[in-house]
């Protein structure tokens, strides 16, 4: 079983899916000869050639727009947008077309398209390279939003995303692209979209989180383990949300902290809090606490660490729900 990082798992999934299905094609900026700026598509062009691994002009809306046409023709395009902050030029193509073609044509056409993009902060990058824009996409009907946090999940979820009949936004937490390795099975496996996983079991408080924050939350849980037994739930898919997993954990612990690096207001955390309010209010021992990025522009490298939730802010959040 190969021992892989997240970015290698992305590559592995693409390699296997392209070999399995000739309709899977990869397109984007620098994805072919260069193998992607993060090397996520390394070796694909050499193996599958010009017709299936395609360097495009530098135009995100164009990449997603032509992918919609390719998908309608029967291909399974996997479009790479180089950074989270550069998905915005393609926003219109996603919200105005990719997500609507099925409904507009009453099912005659569909858009089985994957838009992959490195996601989130923490790598001391220039402006626009550290965004956490998931809430824009979870608010869009017709698209699914996935953010893995481990190499094993990355492969299984990307496989599901590629095989999914609907458009999927696949955000890859770039801070932990190469942070650790995990054994990733060679054999074909898919992790269903819309299913969370429990990253750490606990009984006192539930943390709902995703992306690189899963690691940070595990760190916080470890720090505080003598006092509090923390359950960390990795949401993995943000649209649709795994409401069953949320309910089950809340019923068990009665206390909730939601952690995400995206700005707080109207973030996915607010949706989770509302879900809990609707279904599990009587199980709650304390109000839901959110530990998140701030409602500001993501700062450049020198202030970045103050923006991103860290283990100590998360621990403080845990204490807050415990002390209520």
């Amino acid at each position, binding site marked *: 079983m190969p021992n892989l990082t997240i970015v290698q798992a992305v590559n592995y999934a693409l390699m296997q899916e392209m070999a399995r299905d000739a309709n899977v*094609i990869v397109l984007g900026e620098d994805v072919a000869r260069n193998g992607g700026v993060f090397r996520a598509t390394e070796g694909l062009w050499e193996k599958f050639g010009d*017709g299936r691994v395609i360097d*495009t*002009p530098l*135009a995100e*809306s*164009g990449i997603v*727009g*032509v*992918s*919609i*046409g*390719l*998908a*309608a*023709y*029967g*291909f399974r395009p996997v479009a790479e947008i180089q950074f989270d902050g550069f998905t915005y030029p393609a926003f*219109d*193509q996603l919200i*105005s*077309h990719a997500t609507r*073609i*099925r*409904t*507009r*044509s*009453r*099912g*005659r*056409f*569909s858009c089985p398209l994957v838009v992959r993009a490195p996601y989130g902060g923490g790598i001391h990058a220039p402006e626009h390279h550290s965004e956490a824009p998931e809430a824009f996409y979870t608010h869009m*009907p*017709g698209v*699914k939003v996935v953010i893995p946090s481990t190499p094993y999940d990355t492969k299984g979820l990307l496989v599901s995303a590629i095989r999914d*009949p*609907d458009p999927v936004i696949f955000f890859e937490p770039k801070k932990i692209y190469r942070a650790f390795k995990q054994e990733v099975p060679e054999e074909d496996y898919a992790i269903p979209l*819309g299913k969370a996983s429990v990253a750490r079991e606990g009984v006192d408080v539930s943390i709902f989180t995703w992306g690189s924050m899963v690691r940070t939350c595990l760190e916080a849980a470890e720090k505080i383990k003598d006092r509090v037994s923390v359950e960390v739930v990795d949401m993995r898919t943000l649209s*649709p*949300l795994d*409401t069953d997993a949320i309910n089950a954990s809340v019923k068990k612990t009665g206390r909730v902290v939601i952690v995400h690096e995206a700005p707080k207001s109207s973030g996915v955390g607010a949706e989770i809090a509302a879900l809990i309010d609707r279904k599990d209010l009587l199980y709650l021992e304390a109000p839901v606490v959110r530990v998140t990025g701030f409602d500001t522009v993501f700062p450049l490298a020198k202030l970045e660490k103050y923006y991103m939730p860290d283990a100590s802010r998360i621990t403080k959040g845990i204490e807050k729900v415990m002390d209520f």
Partner: protein
Amino acid sequence: MTPMVRKKSSRKTKAPKSRKAVKKARPARKAQRKISRKVKSAGKAKRKTIKKIMLKPTALKKAKKPSRKIKAEARKPTVIRKISFPERFISEKAVSGVVKRFEVRYLQVLDKDGRCDEKLMPRVSSQDIKSFFELMLTSRVFDDKALALQRQGRIGTYASIRGQEASQIGSAFAMQDQDWMFPSFREAGAYITRKTPMHLVLQYWSGDERGGIMPKGINNFTPSIPVGTHALHAVGFAWGARLRKDRIVCVAYIGDGATSEGDTLEAMNFAGVFRVPVVFLLQNNQWAISVPRAKQTAAETLAQKAIAFGFEGIQVDGNDVFAVYRAAREAMDKARAGGGPTLIECVTYRMGDHTTADDAKRYRDARELEYWVQRDPIDRLRKYMQKKGLWSQEYENKVAEEAGRKVEEAVKTMESQPPPNIEDFFKYTYAEMNQNLKDQLAELMEALKEQQERKE
């Protein structure tokens, strides 16, 4: 290798091609030669004007008295120096001159009085000419009826095609059944030409998505409302066909306003780079709601936008069905043979309001409309057919009567459709309804049930 590099590289730098590759390239080249021969013969015609666009380095513009040498160089028709590999990027010594010249062809076959330049006439039978006339007349009858239906509250907002019949019928007539149309929202004439059941067009505008579901074999993609965004889908679709070696052509129907949208330009760029079998059928109807063509771009023609992307743009008289048909047919033949995209600017006029929600009198001079009424596409064809003995009043009456009957039937079919299912707008959001949507649908149905019970 991109096509641009291919064109510019000199013989010396060309890599030797394998026999197989040469053989493969042959049919495409043949088709291109054929097209360029046609272009040459068209060039001799009287009524054809050529708009030349010269790109001059700024140094040339600034110099008050350019030296003779520079002047002479500026007159040379093509690349002034053969540039070999290392110099391809930048010149080794200081030089100023013309790097490349471009031209945009214009084509009119039938003038406003129905006089035809037979030398430019596309190959069409008398039956084809009658079909043009019948389709154009039927489209106008349909259009008038749709406007009336909107006034009566029987359909919603509708975008009239009046004045654009030649552009739509001529281009759609050039398409084959297996080709795909990517329509914008003002394409009733093209739909009718593509044998689309008329009631579907009305049904769509009555506010029912089911009007967008085409019967099998009618290759029309869904209508696209955001201006300029759908040309990318046509390019992607045509690209997919090319990757699978299916010999189809996609036609993206866009307008003058769309040429200001980044997505349209990205579509043209992708199409040029990947030599996609797509035709951009641009109906320049002079107005984007209230904004005139002159405010969309400072460029002299819209056709020349193609030049920046490395393929041909041609301007045609969009009210001359023969010119539109000929340009569209040639562009499609070229695309089918692997020759890549073409942009066709049909110079036409939106005689009506933007949509039924607009009043063009607020921003448009009545004299302008009068000018274009003199150039009506149907009148022009009628005059021509009269001269050729293909038209009589009885014939036209019969065609109009038949069109009226078909349109009335379509209205009846449209109005006899059962209302769509409420669950439809939930059902097609994803391939499968997720739990969240199921809950929301149940909530709505419950509320409706309670409302109903209260009424009873």
